[in-house]
């Protein structure tokens, strides 16, 4: 029985080096250490381990390190890029834009936390998508949101 090309091409997990081949972000902005689940068109789950050495804790806040909500959103967006990469492989090499976001931060996230970032589709086309994002720490939901991501084929906008 022939194996479909799309089935051949989809791994079930990604390590840090694999992730860097897909997302355009680089140090100090990579918010995924590992991707543990990839179900094209259905779900992506990633992990990020936060240490007290993260750059953003220097200023957020000097007296008490708390993970900025913007970085949690960034983690969801990067998981979204991974989602799109496997949902629309023909779009590889494109620019990803975040359009709109509705997000709720439910618990403070502190150094030492392992983020479990999950994105699932609400409505996705080949050039844009609305995704649900959830981040949990130790099984407890710390942030949930809805983000609209767009894909552009060129770097100009």
């Amino acid at each position, binding site marked *: 029985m022939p194996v479909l090309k799309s089935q051949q091409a989809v791994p079930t997990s990604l390590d840090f080096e694999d992730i860097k081949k897909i997302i355009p972000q680089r140090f100090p902005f990579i918010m995924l250490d590992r991707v543990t689940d990839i179900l094209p068109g259905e779900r992506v789950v990633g992990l990020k381990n936060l240490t007290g050495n993260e750059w953003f804790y220097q200023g957020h806040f000097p007296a008490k390190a708390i993970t900025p909500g913007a970085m949690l959103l960034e983690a969801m967006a990067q998981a979204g890029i991974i989602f799109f990469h496997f949902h629309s492989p023909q779009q590889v090499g494109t620019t990803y834009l975040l*359009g709109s976001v509705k997000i709720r931060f439910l618990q403070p996230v502190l150094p030492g936390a392992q983020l479990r970032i999950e994105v699932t589709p609400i*409505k996705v086309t080949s050039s*844009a998508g609305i995704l649900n994002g959830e981040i949990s720490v130790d099984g407890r939901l710390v942030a949930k949101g809805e983000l609209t*991501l*767009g894909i552009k084929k060129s770097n100009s906008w």
Partner: protein
Amino acid sequence: MANRSHAKDHNGISSEVRKLVAEILEMEAIAISPDAQLVEDLGMDSMKALEILAAIEKRFKVKIPEESLPKMTTLNRVIEIAQQYARA
């Protein structure tokens, strides 16, 4: 196109869609001309188009195929698409 002949549904869908479009394009509903070009005149991009489609789906509990997106050129066209699928 049975919905088009139903005056009450027509009015309800039309005003609801206008509100949804206005909210996503961040405009006053009354300021949107029915025949204004959503992309050229009102700054709609592919992400906003998808948000409008998803908002209509959620509001009217319908599924609208992706192929409808390129047809969403004006508010009137969006209303027509919503009326085509909505069973409100």
